[in-house]
């Protein structure tokens, strides 16, 4: 789908942008004035950007959410928080590199951060297990969240995973139990929890750090009960129907807002977060601060009661 970090549907734009860059370099080197040509090309690029990104279909958003250049939790953290200190380990088995955590200040307020972390390239992805946490990752997250409760600081969670790791070792160490335990404990944690889906929200592996008072989603992030490919394989016995499956699953931020599963969509710059990391980080920060300000007004009892009611209402039936 993507080569050299460019998605198929982005190609015309990326090529145009390359030409503009070349022209700019040429102008500087040869001292020839191409201002008019540049202006017209810039205008064209802007139009193309609008055309391509204005009305993305669900599958295109899946591709954007997994874009090789998409910013990851560790890209955002230094731009949103001050003084981040990563804390390691579940105190039982090992330190899971696919799920990180730590302490930081958010505009002067101490917070606990838990985040799923993918890699930028193959080497990093092997180190991060492609962002698929094992039980010890979820148990590390729970340990840090209980610690946050103990010291009265809010929890900020960044969700970005294809799913919980589906391997034998994960089974042996109780993947199901680890996820279930987190759901139960997060539902009654006595401090505010704000979760942000920044890329892929992959099923139970996402939900395991995604029960909270406010669930926010970046505009091009996706969140689904099953991957579009797996859904297509079950439904049409062919993973190449992923585009149709992505539409059927209703997995975009807009869908989830309408279904009442998330509370707010954080806009991304045109073309996706990777086309404006600083802007995106600023928008996430603004939303986090605003929600934490609201939530810190509530007593712990009220907070937990409201969180319970939020989930109690989920679902449709007759």
């Amino acid at each position, binding site marked *: 789908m993507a080569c050299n970090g460019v998605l198929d549907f982005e190609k015309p734009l990326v090529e145009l942008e390359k030409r503009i860059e070349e022209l700019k370099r040429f102008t500087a080197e040869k001292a020839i004035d191409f201002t008019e040509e540049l202006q017209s090309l810039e205008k064209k690029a802007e139009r193309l950007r609008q055309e391509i990104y204005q009305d993305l279909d669900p599958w295109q958003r899946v591709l954007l959410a997994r874009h090789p250049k998409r910013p990851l939790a560790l890209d955002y953290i230094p731009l949103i928080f001050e003084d981040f200190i990563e804390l390691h380990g579940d105190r039982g088995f090992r330190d899971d590199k696919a799920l990180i955590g730590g302490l930081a200040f958010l505009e002067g307020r101490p917070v606990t951060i838990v985040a799923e972390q993918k890699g930028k390239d193959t080497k990093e992805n092997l180190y991060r297990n492609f962002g698929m946490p094992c039980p010890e990752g979820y148990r590390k997250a729970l340990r840090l969240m209980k610690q946050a409760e103990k010291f009265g600081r809010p929890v900020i969670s960044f969700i970005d995973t294809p799913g*919980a790791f*589906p*391997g*034998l070792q*994960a*089974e*042996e*160490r*109780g*993947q*199901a*139990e680890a*996820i*279930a*335990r987190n*759901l*139960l*404990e997060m*539902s*009654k944690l006595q401090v505010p929890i704000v979760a942000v889906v920044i890329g892929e929200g992959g*099923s*139970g592996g996402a*939900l*395991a750090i995604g*029960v909270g008072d406010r669930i926010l989603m970046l505009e091009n992030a996706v*969140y*689904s*009960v*099953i991957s579009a490919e797996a*859904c297509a394989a*079950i*439904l049409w016995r062919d993973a190449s129907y992923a585009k*149709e499956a992505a539409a*059927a*699953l*209703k*997995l975009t931020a807009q*869908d*989830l807002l309408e*279904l009442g*599963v998330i509370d707010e969509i954080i806009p991304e710059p045109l073309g996706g977060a990777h086309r404006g990391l600083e802007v995106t980080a600023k928008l996430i920060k603004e939303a986090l601060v605003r929600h934490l300000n609201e939530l810190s007004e509530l007593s712990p009892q009220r907070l937990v009661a409201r*969180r*319970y009611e939020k*989930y*109690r209402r*989920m*679902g*449709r*039936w*007759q």
Partner: protein
Amino acid sequence: MPTFKDLFRGKQKYVTVPPKEKVAPKRDIPDGLWSKCTQCNNLLFNKEIERNLLVCPKCNFHYRVPARRRIEQLTDEGTFVELDPDLSPVDPLSFPGYKEKLAAAQHSLGLKEAVLTGTAKLEGIPIVLAVMDFDFIGGSMGSVVGEKITRAVEEALQRRFPLIIVSTSGGARMQEGILSLMQMAKTAAALGRLAEERVLYISVLTNPCTAGVMASFASLGDIIIAEPGALVAFAGPRVIEQTIREKLPPGSHRAEFLLEHGFIDLIVERKELKKTLGRLLRLHGMGGQATNGL
């Protein structure tokens, strides 16, 4: 491994069983007068399997049990009162083919959804019971399964009756998308309240029990029991082999594997299940003093 079934090997030659066409969706209980055990290939008299609680008398394979039959097996006769019998699924995402799938399952099984819930008595002790049915769209959890389980938890909480959930499921229901996923959080949150009020919850895992149900309420029992040989997992063997191409050792993902790795309390044969549940309830101070059998 030589087993009891080897004693009967020779007999198979004398009978020829005509090949039967498989019709889906189909109960995994054998129909007709005679059938061949899907596990040990022994020819069995159907009445005998029935009498044996749908367990193969030769190889002890535990067949799947329809929800109503399971309720009969576990409760005192005539004591089950169903909760929310009319709660029915809708098609919130307008998912392709979902309405038809629901209608087919409802029609062929006479169930509205993949779980039945109610109050009942077990050896005279009042309980809240939820029983899942795998034949209803793979026992998958959509909004209604999540809602009925949650209401059962609330019933147990309000009446302070112990809660028993007999689970079998392929996971969250794809056709209700993210709403199915949210049922995991909803049921887990309800069980969090039940735990705070110190009401007993026993989770019984039956074949198969995987994914979203395992990663929520089924794993959260004060006591977790599994039937012998039950497939119990987060990611089933097929998922693992397909996604990460890992070769699996025999017996991984079975109840015995889970017991060995410390994730369930005990494995109980079907014929002992009701008795064992009764003992556990009495050990929690219900139904008066411990009586015979302890």
